[in-house]
């Protein structure tokens, strides 16, 4: 898989430095205390119960109806929208987190989640700004270091990513996302064996985060370990069967093993599960579309369906005209098509 993958959500507890907004303090004390109690409850839900995100959103909106200037409520609402993960709410998630920081710049967790969103939107520079500001307020915070490391990887500094993620792991050896980001950086540095080892540790530690399975499956395929890839990816589908990346990768592994019917079946599943359009603001959605088209092209080529392969490669190039492998493979497909025509001409085949 090309491009980058970030954790769908790092479950970060709200740090104690997340203080109440000044305005809330000025409201009636009893009312403020009641709101604070509700915020505590809903905040815990937002952080630990993604299945309750919609309930949390309803409650947070109700709190904001009573106290429109509650920085905490805006922050939790932004995080809850982030949990939902739908493209149509990503702008609102950013907006709520930015409003929270406008009301209370000390809400460092808001910066962390904002950075996550910026990475999803392909805005690594803004993510870096937020994380550097967060680290200035909370030096050495391992989750911030880890995400900053991933940000550095995404802007092309994998070595700095390795350093930052190792710092994060020094502070907290069980921090799965730091290990995950470290593995991605190692893979970028072509330290494949070490990268796979780190990813295996992440998957074995058991976080229900599909991205780790996607990355490990990808690494196995690129190392030619197709059975291991299929086993890992199948486990990923048990966590989230709706993620098309898993199906695309399984198709790739099956195709590499010569099991073309199984590959076809996986691509059919991937097509039915992708919901995002090219207009999606999520980089990841556009990457899925690209990878799906590429795998469809390669499978069609392998099946000898040259017209379909050519069309699919062309669709890949519509998304990225400079993608050299697709150009090369399309040229090869066209060459084969010409040879077929030659063979069909009278006297062309002896």
């Amino acid at each position, binding site marked *: 898989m090309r491009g980058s993958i970030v954790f769908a959500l790092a479950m970060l507890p709200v740090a104690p430095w997340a203080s109440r907004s000044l305005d809330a303090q000025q409201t009636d004390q009893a009312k403020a205390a009641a709101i604070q109690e509700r915020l505590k409850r809903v905040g815990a839900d937002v952080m630990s119960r993604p299945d309750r995100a919609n309930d949390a*959103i309803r409650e947070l*909106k109700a709190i*904001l*109806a*009573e106290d*429109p*200037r509650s920085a905490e409520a805006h922050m939790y609402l932004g995080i809850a929208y982030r949990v939902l993960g739908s*493209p*149509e*709410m*990503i*702008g*609102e998630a*950013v*907006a*709520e987190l*930015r*409003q929270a920081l*406008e009301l209370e710049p000390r809400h460092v967790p808001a910066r962390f989640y904002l950075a996550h969103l910026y990475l999803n*939107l*392909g*805005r690594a520079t*803004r993510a870096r700004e937020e994380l550097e500001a967060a680290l200035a307020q909370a030096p050495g915070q391992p989750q911030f270091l880890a995400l900053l490391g991933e940000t550095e990887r995404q802007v092309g500094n994998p070595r700095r990513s390795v350093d930052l993620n190792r710092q994060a792991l020094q502070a907290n050896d069980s921090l799965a996302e730091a290990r995950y980001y470290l593995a991605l950086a190692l893979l970028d540095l072509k330290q494949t064996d070490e990268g796979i080892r780190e990813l295996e540790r992440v998957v074995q530690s058991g976080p229900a985060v599909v991205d780790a399975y996607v990355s490990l499956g990808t690494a196995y395929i690129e190392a030619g370990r197709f059975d291991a890839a299929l086993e890992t990816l199948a486990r990923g589908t048990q966590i989230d069967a709706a993620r098309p990346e898993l199906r695309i990768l399984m198709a790739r592994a099956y195709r590499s093993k010569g099991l073309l019917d199984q590959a076809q079946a996986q691509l059919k599943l991937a097509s039915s599960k992708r919901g995002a359009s*090219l*207009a999606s*603001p999520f980089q990841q959605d556009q990457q899925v579309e690209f990878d799906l088209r590429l795998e469809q092209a390669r499978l069609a080529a392998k099946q000898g369906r040259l017209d379909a392969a050519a069309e699919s490669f062309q669709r890949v*190039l*519509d*998304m*990225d*005209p*400079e993608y050299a492998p697709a150009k090369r493979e399309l040229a090869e497909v066209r060459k084969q098509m010409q040879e077929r025509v030659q063979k069909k001409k009278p006297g062309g085949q002896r």
Partner: protein
Amino acid sequence: MIERAWPAALVSLFLLSSSSPAGQPGAPNRRARFVDVTASAKIDFVHSSGSSAQKHMVETFGSGVAWVDYDNDGFPDLYFVNGAPGAPNALYHNNRDGTFSDVTRQAGVAGEGAGKTAYKTGVAVGDYDNDGFLDLYVTAFGPNVLYKNNGNGTFTDVTATAGVAGPPTEWSTSTGFLDYDRDGDLDLYVANYVEFPMTNSPFCGLRKEGYRMYCLPTLFDGVADRLYRNNGNGTFTDVSKQAGIANPAGKGLGVTFCDFDRDGDEDIYIANDMVRNFLYRNNGDGTFLDVAYGAGVGFDSNGKPQAGMGVDCADVDGDGLPEIFVTNFAEELNTLYQNRGDGIFEDVTQKAGLGSGFVPLGFGTKMFDLDNDGDLDIHVTNGHVIDNVKLYQPNLTYAQKDLLYENIGGKFRDITDVSGPALQVPRVGRGLAVADFDNDGNLDVVISSVGQRPALLRNQGTPGNNWITIRAEGTKSNRFGLGATITVETPEGRQVREINNAASYQSSNDVRLHIGAGKAKTISRIDVLWPSGTKQTLQNVAVNQNLVIKEQ
């Protein structure tokens, strides 16, 4: 007190001189119809969007249009904002005979200063210095400009002295004058959009030739709006932060002002693009509180933010409380929020019969009484933002038809198809502003379009219905009475309206208040609540006149 009244005699002149389908045999009914009179009015302005291969978002914005009676002759003149850097804005003088003359050069409002480098967007009209002449404020992606009306047909760029340019790279959109602190002079609200990197415009869409498209605002951070308090001496102070309206979450496109809670001061509603809308309740002490969550006006009925574009507020159900109408993106409904009077609004879009707004992408809008039957109808101009949208969504088009809704007892009927050929023409509509430019008693509409000529749509009227136009003249209040609440009683009923010319999208409407009186021959009573708090009553007022009410 009636100071003076404009004769309505021109009505007959226009009826005689124009071809009136409503008057022809076989005309379907008495419904108002619009005729495109742009060419005969001698308006030859063409908007320049500055479209480029880089697909800068601002190229999609279009620019606003304003009705401004800059010479106080009782006939509203027209001001068109022009988008691309260097493209001149245009001021057209109303010749009182159905034609206009381009007076831009002598008036000095082409935008030759900051406008040479800025993409010009919106326009506000108001008399900020209370000298009796309407001034102009032009927003831009770049420095904004305040033109002081010198009272002799010319204007002076006083931006630097007034201190209202804003940062040089800020992207401002809709704007409006209001007297939020009720001190008798007009303050200025400026909606801001996003931080857009002009020098490094991101690539969106397919990389195939012809498929590059304009990016979504989601990719960019919002920019806080600005509120400038009028110091009363020709200068303004930026009070955005202390007033509580500096929220960087906003991506403001539409602005309007109404006294939603009827507490005597103007509140502010902002339509934001793809993030929730804001309703700033005026606390009466110089500060505002965004009560959109409590009021239920931030999202659609499914709790989703919409791509808000244009906005207006007015009482469409006759209960005396202003509703909010917001135009939105293609495949979103335009939203009508009904004011329940308890601080809460209800999204009644579907219930009110506004479902036909789903496919088009709405921009400029105004609620006005197009047929003088005593209730407010709705006009929306439409046009997509992505010029090559058909490549991606074959069911959508770049140019789109307007929508016109007739109010029938608080519910709406789409009458676009039966309201004249002018409404059957697809355009890339953006700004829309309303005024009775020919003083015939029927409200006319002007629409600005991206990269195209504007359309001046003359309302041919609904025979038999009466009307009154009120021009408020403040003495303690601001000179044109912006923010005054007018209650009109006739034997047919009671109407509560506010004088507020800031509505629609990047545009400004006539400062006069036009009220349809239906079959009533006399207005039984007019109550004026001035922004100063002064109350004034007139009784037994004749219909079909342009009435000036001076604050006592």
